């Protein structure tokens, strides 16, 4: 574990983040007020931290001004990632059905312009309308009007599925828990943006994992013991350096390799500027993931 370079007081380890190809959709949720749009988006992207346990990873990408949405109301763009197209389709359908359609005043649109590689959304949800649903083709795209107790829920017939990258990450540590968390929060703040989803609570995960387990053959993942400070004295191969007592990981899913790399660059420099003492990244030896993001490539500030 050698330092690749330093940024002020921050030591950046000579390692890389390892990421995987994923499929994703972008949903635009609008509502009568920005608060209701946010409620729907939070519910829809809830319990979507990791594909291992939640079958998808989702997060709010950004809030949208009325001028940026299809119906001129305040909105939120959310990204949802899964391992394949079918997975994206199933999760989008479940989540829009349970979290967006149910939420007062909402409408739900495909956040992409194109019409290729789609999965059904309104095309399936319409059956909730029990035969009373109506479709309209507007500017070449089909929408469904589903009658509900408050009026009508308007939803796109289908949503596009794109090819993205999931599992980019940074691990940020410091001498005190509060300092490490402040640095991680600064990094998460800097990383959010177009094309980026940080699926963990507040964008930050404190229980980083490794693939498999030492004690079980059936566990798909278990604690990243090498980065657990309480185990330092037990292990010969600890990765927690002297003087670091807490580490936090930020997992990044993005719409492209470039989006992930640039988000990591923003995060790394923001964390360094906010008191991080140690920055590293999680990988699986480089054999599992198609995408590698060496931290040395992030040396230049954004």
């Amino acid at each position, binding site marked *: 574990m050698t330092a690749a370079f330093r940024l002020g007081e921050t030591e950046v380890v000579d390692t890389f983040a390892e990421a995987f190809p994923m499929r994703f959709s972008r949903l635009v949720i609008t509502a009568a007020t920005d608060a209701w749009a946010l409620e729907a988006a939070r519910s829809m992207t809830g319990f979507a931290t990791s594909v291992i346990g939640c079958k998808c990873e989702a997060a709010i990408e950004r809030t949208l001004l009325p001028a940026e949405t299809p119906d*001129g109301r305040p909105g939120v763009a959310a990204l949802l990632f899964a391992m394949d197209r079918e997975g994206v389709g199933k999760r989008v359908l479940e989540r829009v059905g349970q979290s967006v359609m149910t939420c007062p005043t909402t409408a739900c649109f495909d956040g992409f312009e194109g019409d290729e590689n789609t999965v059904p959304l309104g095309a399936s949800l319409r059956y909730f309308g029990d035969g009373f649903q109506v479709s*309209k083709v507007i500017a070449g795209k089909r929408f469904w*009007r589903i009658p509900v107790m408050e009026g009508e*829920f308007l939803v796109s017939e289908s949503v596009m599925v794109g090819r993205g990258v999931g599992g980019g990450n940074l691990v940020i540590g410091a001498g005190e828990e509060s300092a490490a968390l402040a640095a991680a929060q600064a990094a998460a703040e800097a990383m959010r943006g177009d094309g980026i989803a940080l699926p963990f609570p507040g964008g930050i995960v404190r229980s980083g994992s490794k693939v498999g387990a030492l004690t079980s053959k059936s566990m798909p993942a278990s604690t990243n013991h090498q980065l657990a400070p309480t185990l330092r004295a037990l292990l010969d191969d600890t990765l927690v350096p002297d003087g670091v007592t807490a580490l936090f990981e930020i997992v990044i899913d993005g719409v492209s390799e470039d989006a992930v790399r640039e988000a990591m660059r923003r995060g790394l420099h923001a964390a360094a500027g906010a008191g991080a003492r140690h920055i590293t990244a999680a990988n699986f030896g480089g054999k599992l993931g198609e995408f590698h993001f060496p931290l040395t490539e992030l040396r230049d500030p954004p």
Partner: protein
Amino acid sequence: MTLTLTLRSQPPRRVDAAPLIPERLSGFEADEVAAITLRCGGDRIPIGDLFEVSGDDAQELILAGDLRRFDGIGARMSGGEIVVRGDVGTWAGAEMAGGVLRIFGDAGHRVGAAYPGARAGMTGGEIVVSGDAGEEAGAGMRRGLVAIGGRAGNGAGLRMLAGTVIALGGIGAEAGLGNRRGSLVSGRAFEPLSSYAYATRFRPPALGLQLRRARELGLTVGDALLRGMWARWSGDITELSRGEILIFEGEEDGE
């Protein structure tokens, strides 16, 4: 590229302008287009005798002038765009299947309608008329949008199957007679036929999108229409009763 036809002189009789659609003129040079003849009464007249023709390869076709004697402009078109600067005759966009027809002027009777005997009229595409439209706009329509900035004459949406007819300046009497699943929209107060039943007042989310689209296509759509409340009437009860007439009620919530 754009092909522009500017009217030079009024034809002696009414002209069937239905051949003037992008898919039929595409690939022709201006002089070739000028040589095409149109039916005018019992005769045929070369386009070049009626219009100044410029440009080429008409994915976008511009027609300019007082075209009230020209019937069937954009009829049965399936793609591309026609922009008309001036008033047009009857049957504009009749049985249209796709593409965009924008008329900056008034339209005659039966814009976007079905020809006599046909079950379905328009099956797709978008028509906007900045001025008024005559009778039976969107008659027999199956899919698509007819958006009229002014008033629609009597019998709009006659025997409509589905699709949407919007008239911001209001719709005339007997609108939506025999309507099955279509949407008729009146920007002014209107009393529907007895075969329609009042349902509710609400903000129709799909109509918002359609009005925005109409605005994008050049219609003047006031913000009040986008923000406001609409009454919904269901009908025609003599058919499925799955059609609707939406009538603008103003911006107030009525609370």
